[in-house]
């Protein structure tokens, strides 16, 4: 499959995933949430992980943070810096979480303990990992809150979460995740629960923080607009598998995998003629408990052929599979012809 090659960056990639499989054991079945995923993120780089709900991107994020439930079985390797995260005991995982890897979840309201003050929650990781005293943690928390752009940070320390607006809460959550200056920041749908204006502000915050702190950032989202212009590389997931990956501009500009192309086609554009039927991808995502051979997108793909149902497409790319920083995809029938303008007067395909 995709060969893992050390990517650009002074001392190699900060985050390196090799052939990761995650299975979740349910009462009656096993869900193959993530299958054979490999990727790398260098310091100071932002990689976007894109896919629809249920494609496994959140599970991937949890795996990277060492937060999978015990019903999960992982195979493959996840390395943060030079530490291995898979197959490691709970104590080591605790040392990694918060200190090496920070994670920001979707809903800032529920991510914060409603009965604990902001200052304590932001400084918590510092006390856990660096043994900081309460005062030291408080001071550091105030600094962090200032860094994330919270007005009057010292006053906010003693507030409760419900006293802050959604955007401020998300900033506080980000501050809490970054206070130990982790090497990797995972942001799982960080803006989905926020209104559009706040979304833009938070995304700008991510940009600024990355410049100042230089961590590797993994932006997990279903919203491609969040990723465009912000992530240097994008990783498109479908049904737990890698579909396509490469430099963002290239992937969005000339998508090769049929799924990526279909996703881009479903985006409404200004040029869409009025009264044109909206394009949607027919069918629904596959049942992840089934053992799927072949390409998972085949049942919904307009270009599918018999081989798509039997063999998972190997990586193919212009610069050869696995080339550092290159663009590659897993599709037997990649898009080759220039695609027509996304919304002709055809009805939904």
């Amino acid at each position, binding site marked *: 499959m995709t060969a893992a090659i050390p990517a650009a960056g002074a001392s190699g990639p900060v985050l390196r995933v090799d052939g990761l499989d995650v299975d*979740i054991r349910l*009462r009656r079945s096993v*869900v193959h*949430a993530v299958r054979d995923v490999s990727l790398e993120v260098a310091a100071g780089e932002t990689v976007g992980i894109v896919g*629809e*709900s*249920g*494609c*496994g991107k*959140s*599970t991937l994020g*949890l795996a990277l943070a060492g*937060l*999978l*439930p*015990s*019903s999960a079985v992982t195979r493959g390797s996840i390395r943060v810096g030079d530490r291995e995260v898979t197959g490691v005991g*709970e104590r080591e995982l605790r040392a990694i979480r918060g200190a090496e890897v920070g994670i920001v979840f979707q809903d800032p309201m529920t991510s914060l303990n409603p009965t604990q003050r902001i200052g304590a929650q932001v400084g918590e990781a510092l006390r856990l990992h660096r043994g900081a005293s309460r005062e030291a943690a408080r001071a550091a928390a105030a600094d962090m809150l200032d860094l994330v752009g919270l007005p009057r940070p010292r006053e906010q320390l003693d507030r409760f979460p419900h006293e802050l607006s959604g955007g401020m809460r998300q900033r506080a959550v980000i501050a809490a995740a970054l206070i130990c200056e982790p090497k990797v920041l995972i942001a799982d749908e960080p803006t989905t629960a926020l209104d559009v204006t706040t979304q833009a502000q938070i995304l700008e915050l991510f940009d600024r923080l990355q410049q100042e702190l230089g961590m590797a950032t993994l932006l997990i989202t279903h919203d491609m607009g969040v990723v465009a212009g912000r992530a240097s590389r994008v990783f498109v997931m479908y049904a*737990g598998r890698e579909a396509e990956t490469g430099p963002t501009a290239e992937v969005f500009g000339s998508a090769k995998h049929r799924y990526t192309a279909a996703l881009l086609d479903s985006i409404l554009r200004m040029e869409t003629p009025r009264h044109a039927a909206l394009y949607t991808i027919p069918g*629904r*995502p596959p*049942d*992840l408990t089934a053992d799927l051979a072949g390409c998972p997108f085949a049942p919904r793909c307009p270009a599918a052929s018999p081989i798509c149902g039997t063999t998972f497409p190997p990586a193919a790319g212009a610069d050869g599979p696995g080339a550092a920083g290159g663009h590659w995809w897993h599709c037997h029938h990649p898009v080759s012809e220039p695609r027509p303008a996304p919304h002709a007067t055809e009805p939904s395909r």
Partner: protein
Amino acid sequence: MSLENMTAALGGADHPGADGPVPAEAPGRVRLRAFADNRLAVAGLAVVIALTLFAFIGPLLYHTDQVHTRLAAETLRPGPGHPLGTDNVGYDQLGRLMVGGQTTLEVAFGAAAVAVLLGVVWGATAGYLGGFADGLMMRVVDALLAIPALFLLIFLATVFKPSVLMLIIVVGVTAWLVPARLVRGEALSLRNREYVQAARTMGVRPPTIIFRHIVTNSIGTILVNATFQVADAILLVAALSFLGLGISPPATNWGAMLSDGLNYTYSGYWWLTYPPGIAIVLTVVAFNLIGDGLRDAFGLDTRRG
């Protein structure tokens, strides 16, 4: 014990399919399957069915005289002819257990039905009306709840003659308060749903709205509470019998059998206490298990109901 174990068993956001598209399946079947997966709940259901059959079908197969006393045969040990012995006036204990079971279950189901019916109507109406009417109706509930049931029942028992019907009404009347509260809570949140508002604008009459929309969507909470009502009613009737406020012989119920039998503890007549006592505990546990199973199947908040 590891923290993941706890959070794992809870599923929730960790489950990969949780926010993804799910193959459409009727909610009723999903819940049925969830219930069937819960072994304890199914066991509870089996116990209830078994005991109901025992109480109602049993006497057709095993005939004993539960009306005429036979003092010559009093307090016989379990043995041939009397698998569970006899009680202090000569009734066969096994047969008595069946007959007592009938009354116990009748009163329990009846009282639960009365309680749920009253409670649902009151609570749904209060929640739907909102505002001052709701406030007043709920204060009435609060006031009745404030008086401990047994205290009230002792008073009522001096006024009304005990009989099965009386017991059903009286126990039901003290028990309707909790379902009322629950359904009112549901009604409050449901009345702002779009389909309720749509119904109102279409001019559907309030009672219809209440029943077709609010009650049907609260059915989970109602069912769960109903099972707990049955369990509570059994214990309440037992307590009443113990206090001497139950029904008079030859009618009996498990609670009365237990409390009568307890008078003979020191004589060692274990067959007078353990059979009805265990029957009570089994039934109450079973209903509680069913209620818990239903609650899980409907995905309800465990801190309500």
